[in-house]
């Protein structure tokens, strides 16, 4: 098993995957995912859908927070904008769903220009709080624009039919989510290895030094905002379709925190990390529930009455424990395991 980065040329440094077996495993995973909707029951399938939608959103946030190092506490704002853009275009004005998805990307991207431009002067915590402010403002704007968004009543959304193919059934909709998730993964991996992605990482690691190297901070930060918002908006549209109903309440502020938790647990700045983190965070409450029900019926009862609370407590605890003991996330843990495996019994 390979353990480290043995790069000998710049070409290898920007390769899409770092070794041939990765292609094989990716193909196996893809085949498994294609087969999954036919094998899983509807309960398990709903988790798969949520995971695929969340992966898309987490990858979107990863561009901004993971690659570029701009912390966003308001990503749920882009999510909800995307969902509303889709709902308004498709359900209200009866546009084709493809136009809806395009709108779900473009509208948050435009909104991100509005929040991104003033944020260019800000860094770190001040930026985090500005994005937080943005997500509250966008909620109010949506509630006030009743003529367009139905205010607090929300909008009903149907499962789409694209190019004559109906995505009405759960299995079909899972394929749609899978397509978007795979496309996003491919796109973000490619962004990371391109000139733009390397500029993002340079800004994250030291923005003053990046500027001295000739990177246009404003342009690249705005570009990170726009790309991130575009992807997040599409994830929002998918989530809206999944819920079959778009309203401000469907997108609580906790989703922003959850998205950051996913990135941290997975490993900040890594596309693989975003995927691993999503799987862990989405399945965590279910896994705990199963564990509890194994122990005793009493504990199971506690879990059912206080389920929501225990679930959120678990999020908090997982965030804290990961930051404390494994700040590089699951990806970091994986690298450690690989190293230990090869070097055993030596420690380094």
């Amino acid at each position: 098993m390979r353990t480290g980065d043995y790069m000998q040329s710049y070409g290898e440094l920007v390769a899409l995957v770092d070794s041939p077996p990765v292609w094989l495993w990716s193909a196996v995973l893809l085949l498994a995912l294609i087969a999954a909707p036919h094998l899983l029951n509807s309960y398990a399938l709903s988790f798969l859908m949520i995971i695929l939608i969340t992966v898309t959103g987490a990858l979107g946030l990863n561009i901004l927070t993971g690659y570029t190092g701009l912390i966003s506490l308001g990503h749920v704002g882009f999510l909800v904008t995307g969902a509303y853009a889709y709902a308004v275009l498709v359900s209200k004005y009866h546009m084709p769903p493809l136009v809806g998805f395009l709108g779900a990307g473009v509208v948050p991207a435009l909104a991100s220009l509005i929040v991104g431009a003033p944020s260019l002067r800000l860094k770190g915590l001040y930026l985090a709080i500005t994005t937080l402010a943005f997500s509250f403002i966008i909620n109010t704007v949506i509630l006030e624009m009743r003529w367009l968004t139905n205010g607090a009543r929300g909008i009903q959304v149907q499962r789409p039919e694209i190019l004559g193919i109906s995505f009405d059934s759960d299995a079909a909709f899972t394929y749609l989510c899978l397509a978007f998730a795979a496309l996003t993964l491919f796109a973000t991996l490619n962004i990371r290895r391109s000139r733009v992605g390397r500029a993002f990482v340079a800004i994250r690691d030291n923005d003053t030094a990046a500027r001295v190297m000739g990177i246009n901070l404003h342009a690249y930060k705005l570009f990170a905002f726009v790309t991130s918002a575009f992807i997040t908006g599409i994830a929002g549209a998918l989530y809206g379709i999944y819920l079959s109903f778009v309203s401000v309440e469907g997108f609580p502020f906790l989703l922003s925190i959850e998205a950051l938790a996913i990135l941290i647990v997975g490993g900040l700045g890594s596309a693989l990390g975003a995927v691993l983190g999503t799987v862990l965070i989405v399945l965590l409450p279910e896994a705990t529930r199963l564990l509890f029900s194994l122990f005793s019926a009493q504990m199971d009862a506690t879990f059912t009455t206080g389920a929501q609370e225990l679930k959120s407590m678990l999020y908090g605890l997982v965030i804290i424990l990961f930051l404390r003991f494994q700040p590089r996330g699951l990806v970091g843990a994986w690298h450690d395991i690989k190293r230990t495996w090869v070097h055993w019994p030596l420690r380094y």
Partner: protein
Amino acid sequence: MQYLIQLLISGLAIGAIYGLIAMGFAVIYKSTGLVNFAQGEMTMITAYIAWTISTTVSGNVFVVAVGAILAAVLLGLVIERLVMRPMLGEPVFATVMVTIGLAVILRSAINFIWDAYPHGLDIGMGRGIVHLGGIGVRTGQIAVIVTLLALLAAIWAFFRYSKVGVAMRAVAADDRTALLMGISATKVHALAWAASSVIAGIGGVFFALSYDLSPAMFQLGLKAFPATILGGLDAVLGSGLGGLLIGITENLAGGYVGSGMKEVAGFAMIIVVLMIRPFGIFGERDIERV
């Protein structure tokens, strides 16, 4: 005119509560350099403990006040010792995310321990109405404004004259040099967390006195963000005043523009302020070197 004065006074009263919580943010930021995203939840827990004391032990004002303050001190110390101290020396992003995790835990713990219904905190005062020139004002609203002003003065004197206050400023300015001068940074951090918890807790108890106690109270923390940002994260006094400013703005926006605007007036304001001064009105500009 009557309407305007009414809006201004209730704005000042709610603004004083924001100011207290915002001071809590600033005290922690000033000595440890991080924003505590769990401030609203800590505020809320103190208020809930005060309510529990008033219903189970005694409704006496002093018993409740002393009990709540002790509980707040304990809460601040425990959080600092168990959660924040192990994170010493980690990057700011990591420590701030830890406080976000803490906020999530505390918020659900409150729902888990107490219930999700609103309660009134009744200690026999604070709800009476005084008439000032034809305008009815609750005594609790006057009390919170007075408390904020008194605390502002006390904290100004503390940072200016007391040895501990100077030590806290030293740690904030440069913790390594402060350590070399014989100041224990961990003690200063513990003190800051305890102080912040108490100051914000007082705000929480006053909120419960004037309005009601409910699981939605953590939003006070979110409302206090604009106040801290407006004043500057490192300006304790500025944050207190920022709270008053936000409270008034919110009420005026709510009274004259629309109730939707009331919720976001503060946030809209900080975006404008940060565009002009990215480090708050009273904050100090950071100078960075590569």
